[in-house]
């Protein structure tokens, strides 16, 4: 994994008007963007630290280009640090309404709680609870 270089996600068919389906890999982590109506659901899998947070931010933004709502799923992120928190906040401050999925008991939820980010962004337990429907 560590030798993989960042490459831009592959574009999906033109039927997706509001956002792009992408699959991206950065060192330590990968992203997968699914479009549900006007919502982009971005799942990050792996570890996020200072070495890949900026790349991941670009990958998330790339998938969510035209979405009206972005839901970032952190359920399968095994490690994240302050660089990850900065990336998430920087992305959320760009203007597209952004919610997070981070189940209680998981690593991401603990960090969001410590940093107080759960007070600024909505954090859901599951994709179903996030109500990701057009």
């Amino acid at each position, binding site marked *: 994994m*560590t030798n993989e270089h960042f490459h831009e996600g592959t574009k999906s068919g033109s039927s997706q008007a509001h956002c792009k389906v992408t699959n991206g890999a950065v*060192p*330590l982590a990968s992203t997968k963007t699914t479009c549900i109506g006007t919502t982009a659901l971005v799942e990050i899998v792996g*570890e996020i*630290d*200072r*070495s890949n947070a900026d790349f991941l931010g670009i990958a998330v933004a790339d998938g969510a280009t035209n979405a009206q709502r972005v839901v970032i799923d952190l359920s399968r992120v095994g*490690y994240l*640090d*302050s*660089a990850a*928190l*900065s990336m998430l906040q920087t992305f959320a401050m760009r203007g597209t309404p952004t919610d997070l999925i981070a189940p209680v008991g998981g*690593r991401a939820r*603990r*960090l969001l709680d*410590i*940093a107080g980010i759960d007070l600024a962004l909505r954090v859901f337990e599951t994709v179903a609870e996030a109500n990701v429907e057009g």
Partner: protein
Amino acid sequence: VGHGIQSAAAMGKLASATRALALVSTEPAQLLAKLDVIATADEAMRFASMALVLADLQAGVLTISLAGHPAPLVRSSSSEVLELNRARSTSLGGLPVQRTQESLNFEGTIDLVLYTDGLTERRDQHPSETIDNMREALRIGPSPANSLSDFLLSRMKAGEQGDDVALLCAKIIKGPKDFEQVFASTLRCLAPLRKKLREWTEIVGMSELEREDVILAVGEAATNAIEHGNRSDPSRHVTVAVTLQNDQLKVVVADEGQWTPPEIGNGLRGRGLGLMKASMDAVLVEPTPAGTVLTLLKRLQDPGTIADLGRTNTKVPV
């Protein structure tokens, strides 16, 4: 020593004498010989029994010396049970004897069981028979130290004979006690550092939550050292050293540059220190001529596995 307030007071004196002597003695037999002198001089301490075990975790060696005390049992990782009875001798301050000791080399993880004779003395059974029962119980007993002690107490019907019982079960793990990594100042080194630290924190028996908190704090500290201390100059190095003494975990992260800690909560740069403070008990930043030294301290909660194993253990039965 017996029962009652006199005995309790004598035990207190014996415990502090043992603790003091442990600082200046390197061998259990030598320590017992010094305690003989003290116990001879003080009537109340005379004829106390003691089992002294020194665990060298780096070398994987247990050294045992006994003074009128039942021999400890050891269970290896392959469930082989040994009675460490070669260094038996008389009670403290009694007839003059040459104190001896026995050493046992071990690999991996072993269980050490120390107990007083209240657990094995039976009016209707020969002592060797009850010790055989005890060995069998240990052979099949559960792995976690607290479950093992409950299991042994119930199998041996502790308390039914009317004598009081002291039982200590300890899990002893051979392995490097200290963690040290030196790496070049590039962010690519962060993930391998976390991987190694994850392994080490598992070996020393930290709980899952504590491990993740420590890995986060060390990750933040190392990121700071790379970016702010060494300014991402790969020719400069970062040193991470983690030590565990009893239940106190200490992390030292040293870089070869100069940086000053920002006020907590000011901007993005401050967030790393904030997370370190949230996940550890104390964070100290100390600028030195050679670089900046960041120290993180945390008292570990989980006492079941290794908390007592880094030092010379003395168990003083009443």
